[in-house]
Structure formats: structure tokens, C-alpha cells
């Protein structure tokens, strides 16, 4: 007993000496881990995939299976092949290799995706950017950097190895702030606890005009950070991610505007940061440290929510679910309406509608789906800012239905004046068949790619990393 009391009093005054001298772009989390074992160990728990909440969690959820309407909404675009609810940071590199969206390139210059795709997947990115230059990094195909980028998201993405301060390592965020007339370096410590996340958990697009030959990663924030401001931004530059395979509408894809939506919520308004909920403090053996097991806070209510809220765990969980339910009810409805709009537009084309007649309608589809996707793609959004998410969905419904009224008049004028039957897209397989995807082929190619190409990448990476030496104290 006495010795235990002694120990615990000693805890209060214990100090650490670093074991390893970290180089500026050290991408290997294990190496950082030698200095910071607690942070490292908790970080590696993002490998866990056993927790599933009502809508999220760290299990891999096949969103196309859960909600096959998505397949139709993304017809003609990679997401209709494969889309999962994200899991832990540990899997970032593995998952980008595995997704059907990246195809099965068998040479460095092949495949559907640009090298820019790597940007948010690994601490090798800042290293390669510094070696190649930023614009160079964004040039070429995804497969080009397959052997360079192997360490999953980690320490070097968020920390300065010298001081361990939080830092922004992705140029896109710095540039986006500049465009808004702000300086990201002036961010406070508390803001940095969200800005490190805002490097990746944001809506983005690839600008081909910034630098010739590069797919330049850009955040569409110049006119503001709302859904409307980004829409206006894209409209003005006539940008579209793809042309819809069914309706031929010039579409936008919204990717995880996590930070943007969070900013509209009460927690952000009160200065609560991403890290407050997703990386709460933890004590182990009297040492306080930041829990690097980034995950759904619903798997950790005691340390995250209850720091600020005195309610029981069950109540807090219910609060989250209630908000998610209320938002998702209408989001699901909006999906159905847009599916119908795509099909009705196709019918109009089939009945020989003219480009002129279709133009407003296609813009309507674009804007409705943009708003839906913005609300859907940020998986945390219906809790981060429930009211804003709901507002966005309302405007989406209005636009979708205005468009369908126009479509119904157009169709009637072409002699078709009834409800178009809703297709049987009740499973992922049926939906993918409906839009004409050859899934067997895609899966087969992917498998080969994972068995042949990826091992070579890993081999090369291993050699490279073995050649670096680590300074130990």
C-alpha cells in the first residue's frame, strides 16, 4: 500500500526523454511510436473494426448494399462500383488499393484515377511532395506513386517532429485559406485541433487549369464555406465531375464536407474541436495523453461527451440517434426523388427532347443531387450540424421536385403523361445490373491487381525504408 501511494505521487512529477531523433518527414508511425508509446498504441487501435453504431462505426459498411439507390445516383461514375462508409485511419492505404474505384492499373501510367487521390491517405505524402514539388505530385496516375505511399495516415500528417506541435501538411488547406483571405498560420491552438482534420475531411475537386497536366487538389471555398457558396463557385467555372449516364446531367460529386458542416453546428460555435470528441484525453497510469484512437465517439461516450454533458450514456446515444433519424428520413426520400428525376430525364431524351428544352432540367438535377450528396457524404453531419443538414435537404427536395414538374410538362408535351414506373433496384446487385455494370469483370481484375501489382509496390517500399537510418539516443 505504502509503495503504491509513493508511486502514485511520483506520477505527478514524472518527465520523459525522447528515444529517437525524428527526421523532418519521417512517415513511419512505428518510429514516432518509440518516443510516444501511449499515443502510438492508441493510434494503432484504429485497426479495430468491431464497433458499429446505428449508422456509423468502425466496421466496414458497404453503402451501396445498405442503400442501392446510390448506384443509380452515381451511374457513370466510379462511386457506383464501390463505396463504403470509412473506417479507421489504419486502413486508409489498404482501402484505396482495394476499392474498385481505383481500378486495376498494371503500369504506372494507367488506371482511372490521378495521383492526387493519395493526398489524404498517408504521411508519405508530405515526404513525396517535398521531394517532387507539389504540382508534380498531382501529375500522372495514381499507380505512379503506388510504391512510394505505404504508411497509413499518421503522426507526420498532423505533427511537427521537432516540437510535436500540430501543423498543416497539406497545401490545399493553406491555399484555400489564402483564397478566403485568411492565414492558416494564425490559427489558435484550439482551432488547430480541428484544422488538422480539415486537411482531409472536406469537400474537394481536382482543378486541371491551375497547373498544366496536374489534377490540382482544391477546396471550393472562395465564395464561402456553405453548400450554396460552393455550388455557385462550381457553376461559375462550369465545372462538373462527370456526366450522368442516365440523365446526361453535368454532375457534381460532394465528398465528405465534414469540416464545413461541423462549422455550422452548435459545438463549433461554442469552440468545441474535432479532437475534443474524437480524440479525448485519457489517463493511463497517472499519465494524461490524447487518445489517438480516432473513431466514433459513441464507442467512447464516457471520455468524450461526458466531459461536458452529465447525462447518462444511453440518453446521449439516443440524442445522437434522434438527430440522425430525423435527418435521414428526409435524405432517403430525396434520394428516391432524384432517382426518379434521372429516369424521367432519360425518358425525355428518348422522346427526343432538345438540348434547349433539357438545359434547365439538367441543372436542376445537378443542384438537387449536389445538395443531397453534401448532406449524405459527411457521415457525421447529421449530428455535427443537424439543422444545417436538414435545411440543405429541404432545399434539395424543393429543387428536385421543381425539376420533376418541369419534366412532367415536357414529357406530356411529347405525348407521355403518366408516372414512370420506379425500377426494381432493391439490392446493390440489381441496381448495378440496371445501370449496366459488369461487376464480375471489375472484381476479377481487382483481385489480380491486389495479388500481383501491390506486392511489388510493397517490396520496393520495404527496400527504401530499410535504407533510412534512425538516430537513437
Amino acid at each position: 500500500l505504502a509503495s503504491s501511494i509513493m508511486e502514485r505521487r511520483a506520477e505527478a512529477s514524472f518527465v520523459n526523454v525522447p528515444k529517437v531523433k525524428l527526421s523532418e518527414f519521417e512517415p513511419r508511425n512505428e518510429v514516432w511510436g518509440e518516443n510516444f508509446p501511449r499515443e502510438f498504441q492508441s493510434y494503432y487501435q484504429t485497426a479495430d473494426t468491431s464497433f458499429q453504431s446505428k449508422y456509423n462505426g468502425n466496421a466496414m459498411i458497404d453503402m451501396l448494399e445498405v442503400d442501392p439507390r446510390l448506384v443509380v445516383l452515381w451511374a457513370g461514375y466510379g462511386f457506383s462500383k464501390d463505396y463504403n462508409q470509412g473506417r479507421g485511419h489504419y486502413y486508409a492505404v489498404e482501402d484505396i488499393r482495394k476499392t474498385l474505384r481505383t481500378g486495376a492499373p498494371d503500369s504506372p501510367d494507367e488506371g482511372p484515377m490521378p495521383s492526387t487521390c493519395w493526398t489524404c491517405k498517408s504521411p508519405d505524402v508530405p515526404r513525396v511532395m517535398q521531394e517532387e514539388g507539389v504540382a508534380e505530385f498531382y501529375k500522372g496516375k495514381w499507380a505512379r506513386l503506388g510504391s512510394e505511399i505505404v504508411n497509413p495516415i499518421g503522426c507526420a500528417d498532423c505533427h511537427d517532429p521537432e516540437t510535436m506541435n500540430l501543423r498543416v501538411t497539406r497545401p490545399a488547406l493553406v491555399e484555400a485559406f489564402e483564397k478566403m483571405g485568411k492565414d492558416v498560420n494564425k490559427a489558435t491552438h484550439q482551432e488547430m485541433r480541428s484544422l488538422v482534420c480539415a486537411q482531409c475531411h472536406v469537400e474537394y475537386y481536382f482543378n486541371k487549369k491551375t497547373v498544366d497536366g496536374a489534377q490540382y487538389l482544391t477546396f471550393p471555398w472562395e465564395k464561402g464555406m456553405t453548400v450554396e457558396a460552393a455550388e455557385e463557385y462550381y457553376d461559375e467555372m462550369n465545372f462538373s465531375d462527370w456526366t450522368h449516364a442516365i440523365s446526361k446531367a453535368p454532375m457534381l460529386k460532394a465528398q465528405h464536407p465534414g469540416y464545413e458542416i461541423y462549422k455550422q453546428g452548435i459545438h463549433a460555435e461554442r469552440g468545441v474541436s474535432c479532437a475534443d470528441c474524437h480524440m479525448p484525453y485519457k489517463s493511463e497510469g497517472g499519465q494524461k495523453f490524447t487518445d489517438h484512437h480516432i473513431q466514433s465517439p459513441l464507442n467512447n461516450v464516457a471520455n468524450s461527451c461526458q466531459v461536458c454533458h452529465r447525462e447518462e450514456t444511453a440518453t446521449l446515444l439516443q440524442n445522437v440517434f434522434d438527430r440522425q433519424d430525423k435527418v435521414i428520413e428526409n435524405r432517403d426520400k430525396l434520394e428516391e426523388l432524384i432517382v426518379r428525376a434521372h429516369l424521367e430525364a432519360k425518358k425525355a431524351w428518348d422522346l427526343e427532347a432538345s438540348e434547349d428544352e433539357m438545359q434547365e432540367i439538367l441543372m436542376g438535377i445537378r443542384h438537387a443531387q449536389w445538395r443531397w450528396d453534401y448532406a449524405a457524404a459527411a457521415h457525421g453531419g447529421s449530428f455535427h450540424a443537424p439543422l444545417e443538414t436538414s435545411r440543405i435537404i429541404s432545399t434539395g427536395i424543393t429543387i428536385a421536385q421543381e425539376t420533376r414538374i418541369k419534366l412532367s410538362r415536357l414529357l406530356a408535351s411529347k405525348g407521355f403523361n403518366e408516372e414512370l414506373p420506379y425500377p426494381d433496384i432493391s439490392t446493390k446487385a440489381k441496381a448495378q445490373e440496371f445501370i449496366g455494370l459488369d461487376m464480375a469483370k471489375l472484381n476479377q481484375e481487382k483481385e489480380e491487381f491486389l495479388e500481383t501489382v501491390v506486392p511489388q509496390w510493397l517490396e520496393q517500399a520495404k527496400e527504401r525504408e530499410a535504407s533510412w537510418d534512425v538516430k537513437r539516443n
Partner: protein
Amino acid sequence: MIKKFHPPKIWRIPVIIALGIFAGLFVLSVYLSKAHSYLSDDPKTCVNCHIMAPQYATWNHSSHREWTNCNDCHVPHNNVFNKYYFKAKDGLRHATIFTLRKEPQVIFIKEEGAEVVHQNCVRCHERQLIDAKQSACISNYKEHRTDRKCWECHREVPHGRVNSLSSTPFARVPLPESPVPEWIKKLDNN
């Protein structure tokens, strides 16, 4: 009859020695953990446990610092016996949990303790809460004005709303000096 329970004579010496050791260890424990200080009302004694530092720091920055110490709120004041009984009971549980390292990241006051605090709020503020004129003609007057925990509304009194062992990381609280000599610490590091 009673003799039957006497230990055999040969046990006597070892038992006395053992008792002596226990007594010594007890005194040492009491000294190390500064348990003697728990008889006082000085808030510094609560931070003998670094775990209590956030509460100390928040109280220390609150309007109540000038008027209250921890025990004014956290110990019953209805009679002297109750005061020390409650203190001992709570104190022993906290000490046990602390030593076993079972403290949660976020400490929650227990219902029993909360009721004690609540009664203490009422004790000090009774005159602002209760209007003698009105209690004359309103039934359940006092009950109705005191049936909700005061801090349902006064949410920031006195510890604020952010509760965690790490909620005041660099607060200057009178932590005890390390009792472990330098040379032991050095041994420890290798």
C-alpha cells in the same frame, strides 16, 4: 472458556512484531498520504490527490472561493457526527479507488454526495430563496423552491461544465512535493 482463544505462547513475540510492523506501516501510510490533514477544512488537503486538481482550480477561480471551502459544500453540516462520519466514509472510498487506480477519466458526483451539496447550497442561500412572507400562504413553498438541484440552472457553479481529470492541465494548484528521493527515481528509470 476464554483461555481457549488465547494463542499459544510461542506466537506472542512474532505477533507483537507483526503488529508493530503493521502499526508502523499504517503511520507511514498516514504520513505519506497526508491523511492527518483530512481532519481539517483546508482545500489544499483535497489536492493531496492530484486527481482533485481540476476541482480545486475551478473552485479557486470561482466567486465561491472567498466564502466556501470544499467541505462547506461536500460535507453535511446538519450535525457534527454526520459531518465526520460522511467524511470518513467518502474519504476511505476515494483513497481506495485512488490507490487501486480505478478512478474514471470523468468523475461523476454520486447521488448521495450531490444531495449533500444541494443541502449546503440551500443552507447558505436560504434567505435569498425563501421569503417568509410567502411561506405563510403558499403550500410546499420551500420544497418547490429547492426540489431541483441548484446547478441544473446555475450550471457553472463552482466547477464549470467541463469535467475531466485533464480539464485544467497546467493549473497552478498546491500539489504535494514528490516524496520519492532522487536516487530512488534514478533507480526507477533503468
